[in-house]
């Protein structure tokens, strides 16, 4: 149990997908203008991550990796190269499902998220979390912890960034730095701050 808590906490703070690995940056910078939108997107990302990472883990370990098909008598087959195609398909399907559910049961959130919902499919953070999970060879339960941590971490980063940018709106910034430029620099400082936590053994 402490192993799972450790994975979760590590992923949220020490190995933050947005601020330590720089995944999901495009959406990160585009959505972080307002805290409310950021929160909505953050929740959607948490849901997709928690579902997609364990699902991809199951598919990879029971169908694709070397020796996975031993139960079918095809132990030498190694289909891991099909991994990327399967994983992106799973993610696209999950996002489509989420869209349908939101549209039916939470129409206000659906409207607020607008175009950003389908854009979650191409959010590097989602695919990235799956790829890291495979690299580190987690089992299914660990994948759930990791997926949740990845989602929470990314949401935390995007909401923090939105808070910063809302304050920056009133600042007198040189014309060339307005908007995108200052967002980058602020993100760099935020990332530097998170690096200060690195190395803590949880």
């Amino acid at each position, binding site marked *: 149990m402490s192993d799972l808590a450790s994975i979760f906490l590590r992923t949220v703070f020490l*190995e933050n997908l947005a601020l330590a690995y720089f995944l999901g940056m495009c959406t990160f910078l585009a959505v972080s203008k307002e805290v409310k939108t950021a929160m909505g997107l953050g929740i959607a990302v948490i849901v997709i991550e928690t579902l997609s990472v364990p699902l991809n883990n199951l598919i990879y370990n029971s169908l694709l990796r070397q020796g996975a098909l031993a139960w079918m008598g095809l132990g030498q087959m190694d289909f891991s*190269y*099909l991994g990327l*195609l399967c994983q992106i398909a799973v993610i696209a399907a999950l996002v489509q499902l989420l869209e349908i559910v939101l549209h039916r049961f939470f129409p206000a959130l659906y409207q607020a998220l607008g175009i950003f919902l389908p854009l979650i499919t191409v959010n590097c953070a989602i695919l990235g979390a799956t790829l890291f999970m495979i690299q*580190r*060879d987690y089992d299914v339960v660990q994948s759930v912890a990791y997926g949740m941590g990845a989602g929470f971490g990314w949401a935390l980063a995007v909401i923090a960034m939105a808070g910063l940018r809302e304050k920056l709106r009133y600042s007198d910034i040189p014309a060339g730095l307005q908007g995108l430029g200052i967002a980058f620099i602020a993100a760099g400082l935020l990332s530097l701050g998170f690096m200060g936590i*690195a*190395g803590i053994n949880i």
Partner: protein
Amino acid sequence: MARDTPIRALVTVLLTAVVCSFFVSASVVLLRPIQLNNELLKRSDNVLVLTGLIPAGEQIGDEQLLDLFKSLDARVIDIDAAAPVPEIDPWTFDGRAAAADPDLSVTIPAGEDIAGLGRRSRYKTLYLVWKDGELDRVVLPIRGAGMWSMIYGYVAIESDFNTIAGMVIYEQNETPGLGDMIAKPYWQSKWVGKKLYDAQGDMLFRVAEGPVQAGAAGAEYEVDALTGATITANAVTALMRYWFGPGGYGPLLEQWRARPPQESTTNARETT
């Protein structure tokens, strides 16, 4: 845009699937032999650099590298039994994959797992280097959890089974500019001549907290610190202490000190 009927959609999707799978599978099948060869070359390079068989500064071609590698005396040993396992072919055994295989590995009890490994393969491939019938050195694989991810390397031990002849870290993801010094030959060269155990057999080797003053007490067991990379340095100390302690090669090296291994020509692979 084409007319949107279910039939057309289905046909398009199927066609895309077939064409894409063809290209992907073709590239994988055609390129796999090259990739496997690359892995073998990399492993050869990592091990050979520690054997002292390549004259310093000389560049040798891939063919020669592979031949030299295959001429080494490779043995798979059972760590817990501290004995060689002749049944396992050292040239095809994958120690890294074995650590994840429940049949070929053991879980390390939490109190003993100072290197953060979780599981440890029961068997490891060692490389013995013979010079004129005498054992010159042994190359042993090591690994341990670093600050960011697993660190992998090899350590070469001289024939007294205590002095370090060299070491190499070939895979790590430590902080660039700080922790990744462990992969630099400059730092690795400081390990040459350092000792692992003292006269009583206690494991004393460690990465120091500062620069090591030559001649100070205990200096022969210490290596210079890494500036600003305490966690990585501690990780290296921990992994050395695990692998050369009672849970790793410790018992084997103790045994060999009492009764050194014999050269056995049947273990070197035929180079044909």
